[in-house]
């Protein structure tokens, strides 16, 4: 049987450390590989000024480079150092939809997501990432406090 894959919805902020640690620990125990995903929130229906439109392509390149060097690469390094096979990707769009989509596409066994932010008023009204995943996740999902 091929190796199981866990998808990690990784924000890369201060609270994400425990999420990554937990995912690494579980992957080690199960002999699974990790796929660390960082989503840059983006809507194709938002409004931009002409100046922002002009600079968008350049900004996107910068944002992707920054996310790779500051968020994804260190996370992959951390997992690799712990002996876990890890890959990563950055995507633009809605976090919940994309994580569910990637989990399906990669036939992942599980999704790991941080609880962060789900206490805020906005999260209660509009729904947070863990709440959204609870509704549409295609595979078992672990919410890490």
């Amino acid at each position, binding site marked *: 049987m091929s190796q199981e894959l866990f998808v990690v919805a990784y924000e890369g902020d201060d609270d994400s450390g425990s999420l990554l640690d937990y995912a690494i620990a579980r992957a080690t125990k199960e002999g699974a590989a990790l796929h660390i995903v960082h989503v*840059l929130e*983006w809507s*194709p*229906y*938002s*409004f*931009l*000024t*002409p*100046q*922002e*439109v*002009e*600079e*968008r*392509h*350049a*900004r*996107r*390149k910068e*944002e*992707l480079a920054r996310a790779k060097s500051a968020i994804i690469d260190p996370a992959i390094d951390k997992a690799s150092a712990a002996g876990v096979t890890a890959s990563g990707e950055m*995507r*633009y*769009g809605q976090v919940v939809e994309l994580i569910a989509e990637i989990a399906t596409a990669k036939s992942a066994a599980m999704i790991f997501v941080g609880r962060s932010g789900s206490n805020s008023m906005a999260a209660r009204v509009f729904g947070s990432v863990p709440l959204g995943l609870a509704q549409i996740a295609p595979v078992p999902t672990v919410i890490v406090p």
Partner: protein
Amino acid sequence: MKRVTTSAAALAGMALTAAPAAAQGIDETINQVFSDYTGWYVGLIFANLPGTNFSWIALWLVVAAVIFTVYFSAIQLRGFGHSIALVKGDYSDPEDAGEVSHFQALATALSGTVGLGNIAGVAVAVGIGGPGATFWMIIAGLFGMATKFTECTLGVKYRNEYADGHVSGGPMYYITKGFKERGLPGGKVLAVIFCIFTILGALGGGNMFQANQAHAQLAGVVGDYPGWITGVILAVVTFVVIVGGIKSIARVTEKVVPFMGIFYVLVSLVILIMNYDMILWAFGQIFAGAFTGLGVAGGFTGALIQGFRRAAFSNEAGIGSAAIAHSAVKTKEPITEGYVALLEPFIDTVVICTMTALVIVITGVLNVDPDTGLYVWDEAAGRITTADGSSGVQLTSAAFASVFSWFPYMLAIAVVLFAFSTMISWSYYGLKAWTYLFGESRGSEVTFKVIFCLFIVIGAAASLGPVIDFSDAMLFSMAIVNIIALYLLMPIVKAELAHYISRLKSGEIRKFR
């Protein structure tokens, strides 16, 4: 930069310390100087064809729109569904997420065009040309869709993409590159002429007209006060955004403006629904007025000229500004942006302008002679007399206020925001033309932006007549150059279109969702 800031502050200080009584004098002086220096050019642009009272420039735009419509076999009709699919993102590669989407390019371009033209411009058109002007405005809007299709396709095809990823496009680029590609002479000269007109158009229609009408609306709500005060305030805020780079203000405006637009259409619809029994009558007035004038000076041609003028001023088809706005979209197929752009005149003119016109006609703010059924013409003012004597944006305001008394306050906010977002857009179009001429250095950019802000004050202080005429003259001048280029380059667009449609049919270009 420091010197510039200091002199701007000094100017604002000077203006603020001036006594209000003296300010009225300043307004009048600006007016006089303005008329004296720009009057001859305005006269030239709006000169009538020999032996008629039909201005050659209106004919120029409409003939172009009709030619493009025929040349591209009514692309605005047969391509409408595909345009919607593109805006919805059906054909957008998910790998390109995070780039400028078709929707965003359309929304940004629209925020530069939807605005005062739709509110004040329509009132001017209906006030002078009668309800019949609406009919010609809609016709011009429908044909104008083909013009927009042509110019925006070229805008994307010949844009400059720089190493750092930023993009510059617009008529000046397709004129130089396209002419070279086709072996045509004079591309560089035409591009320079276009840029000069764009800079003046940005200062006129994209700036002074906006400031002028924003002031008119504010004064209508809070009582009359000198225009330069509105001008200085607007200039300072614009200065902070475009020179200071305070993007948050611009971003807030960009977000609020679309909702204002939707709200405006909804309120119009409510008024129409409340007067549902008069809708047929209003359309009757529009059709009858279109061919007889219903008492307006110049009759049928008076209505036609006003309708065409205002449509062009409102949706900017053929002017070339949209080609600048649309050129940064992420697409491998320039023609897709043409498809998307053709929705602009539809939304702007066929939907929003028509709403304003219907509300003005239905609410009866234009005076009708009960005996003849004709509109009462005021010879001295050169327009139809109105219930409260107002014109321009105040006429629209009065029309809405006759149903909802709170509307003028709402409209004042909307007008100022629309004016502001249009100014931000046009400061960008003007800047692109300016940097094409003078290079993309920081110093050259700041110089233009400061000049732009100074013209806001002039626009707010001058009276409606000279400003509106100068604005139109500059925008139409852009159209003279741009449309010449479009005629010469339209075979390129046709080849692009044929190639694209064949791949669409073969399934090579497919939907992603």
